[in-house]
């Protein structure tokens, strides 16, 4: 921490020293290749980067004391630039190159991390598929990883996931879309300024809170309501989880759809009004079709969010891998089983543990496909108004 402060201070010092030296050269009648501030910027980044690299190295090699190495490196970098200041130094060009390199590095770190995660999941999945044949995983209808003779049939998890997602969408699609249309087309500025942040607040509720709301409020309510009508419903049900998950993705759908509806140019609406169309005709026949591709991609993003959600399902839908489409039965999902497989003590190479990676990979491929599809839809939409 102390060394970080020293590095920054030295870098600032280097900035002023080099900048003033370049300014003095310019005042002395020399024509510089770059303005004095760029000499300063160059000194600043070189000193800062040298210091940071030294700091990192010191962290890796205990023999190197950070408090000495880092400031020394920073000072060396700053002095090097200071001495290099001359009319022919192309300070601006070099500075821009360094900035570019830093930007590339930042995005490379993010990309390689993703690749690394996917690769490690893929490798562990391969180990799993050495123990369990792929077709019995993909097409098996029995998921009982802890039975004496374990069975890893993925189908009940997929149907559970689909069932809950469908329930969630049935709730969220109309609610989200209608509130988006209200916000974008009907609400006045004041209402919008209040309602939109409130809706988005719903997206900020931690899913674990939504989860116990589902388990402790919604599920018992469904159970008593069912009992009143003469059905017996499990206290954990796909319905409870799906309903609450629907509430979770309402703000996602409404906020994204509101944005795309707003992005439809006002000129389209004016064109329709000028033809003598009413407001609802304009929305139905011009605004909505124009925004449709964007709305579809909002839905797809919401679906992948629902598929990946774990907390609500763990708490409200249960752990029972039932192969059913009955919304009032207990089901389980891919994400829930991933967390279940990794909880508790386990040997790392058992088929049970490794199955989590296979499930993760499958889930990743499903959401990846959905996201790629969404991106393509969005791109098509952009071309529309280009």
């Amino acid at each position: 921490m102390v060394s970080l402060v020293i590095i920054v201070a030295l870098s600032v010092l280097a900035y002023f020293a080099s900048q003033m030296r370049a300014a003095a050269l310019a005042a002395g009648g020399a024509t510089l290749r770059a303005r004095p501030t760029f000499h300063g910027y160059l000194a600043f980044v070189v000193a800062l980067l040298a210091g940071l690299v030294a700091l990192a190295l010191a962290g890796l090699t205990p023999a190197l004391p950070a408090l000495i190495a880092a400031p020394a490196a920073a000072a060396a970098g700053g002095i090097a630039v200071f001495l290099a200041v001359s009319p022919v130094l192309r300070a601006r060009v070099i500075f821009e190159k360094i900035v570019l390199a830093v930007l590339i590095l930042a995005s490379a770190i993010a990309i390689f991390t993703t690749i690394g995660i996917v690769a490690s999941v893929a490798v562990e999945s391969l180990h799993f598929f050495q123990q369990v044949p792929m077709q019995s995983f993909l097409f098996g209808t029995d998921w009982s990883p802890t039975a004496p003779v374990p069975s890893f049939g993925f189908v009940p998890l997929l149907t559970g996931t689909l069932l809950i997602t469908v329930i969630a969408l049935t709730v969220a699609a109309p609610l989200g879309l209608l509130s988006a249309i209200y916000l974008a087309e009907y609400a006045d500025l004041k209402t919008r300024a209040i309602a939109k942040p409130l809706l988005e607040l719903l997206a900020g509720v931690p899913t674990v809170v939504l989860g116990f709301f589902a388990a402790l409020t919604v599920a018992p309510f469904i159970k008593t309501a069912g009992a009143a009508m003469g059905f017996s419903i499990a206290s954990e049900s796909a319905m409870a989880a799906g309903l609450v998950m629907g509430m979770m993705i309402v703000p996602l759908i409404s906020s994204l759809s509101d944005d795309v509806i707003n992005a439809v140019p006002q000129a389209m609406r004016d064109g329709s009004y000028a033809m003598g169309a009413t407001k609802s005709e304009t929305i139905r026949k011009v605004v909505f079709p124009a925004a449709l591709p964007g709305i579809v991609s909002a839905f797809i993003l919401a679906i992948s969010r629902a598929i990946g959600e774990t907390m609500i399902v763990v708490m409200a839908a249960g752990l029972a891998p039932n192969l059913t489409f009955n919304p009032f039965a207990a089901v389980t999902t891919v994400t829930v089983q991933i967390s279940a497989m990794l909880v508790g003590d386990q040997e790392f190479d058992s088929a049970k543990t490794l199955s989590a990676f296979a499930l993760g990979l499958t889930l990743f491929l499903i959401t990846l496909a959905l996201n790629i599809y969404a991106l393509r839809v969005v791109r098509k939409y952009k071309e529309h108004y280009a």
Partner: protein
Amino acid sequence: MNDMTFKTVFTPPQPKILATNPAKIIAEGVDVYYGEKHAIKNLSLTIPDKAVSAFIGPSGCGKSTFLRSINRMNDTIPGCRVTGVINVDGQAIYDPSIDVVDLRARIGMVFQKPNPFPKSIFENVAYGPRIHGLAKDKTALEQIVTESLKRASLWDEVKDRLHQPGTGLSGGQQQRLCIARAIAVNPEVILMDEPCSALDPIATARIEELITELKEKFCIVIVTHSMQQAARVSDLTAFFHLGILVEAGDTDEVFTSPQEKRTHDYITGRFG
């Protein structure tokens, strides 16, 4: 009593065109405000039927604002307020009993920037007839679309691609598509806000030809920055300056012997 006040402010000589053509739109003492901004000040103007009237004037003088108040498109702008009387066929269009949707079906508009819907060429033109139920069946609808495209002199260019998107046309073609869309509902009045500002001389000439043709049936109002265009196509010219209607009269009169010095300076390009 209101009569007295605005007549003393502005007493136009009666344009000859109004002797031959009946009045279609009569504005009396119209003021338009955008919030605090007073964009049109006490404007009175009579627009003849079956003729072309041109609005000219420097940028920001209120031409579009007044044009939009004729079909009440100003209603869609938050904070915009119109006072005074505008009569179309003797009917006060700002009267609370007036149905705006109905009014706009009678008064078509072509915007400065072409704004075709992101639908097919056919659907663009069929839009108005569909919502107003003007076609009994598919054949009748096709008939209207074909007819409108022909009148907008776009038919030959698009007859083989009616089901491709209207947004894929060139700027000039899009503008003619918007004109076809506007005339498909058979409006009585067509308002055109600088319809040629983005067009090349050839497309401009075609639209001017079209305007001259359309005035046989419709009352046309056009906003333009081109003096030549106003002189070529219009029968009546109205010169706006800073929200005030400075002068209105027969186009040949206004261009050869303007009554006001400001008009003279503007049309001779000596406006400071």
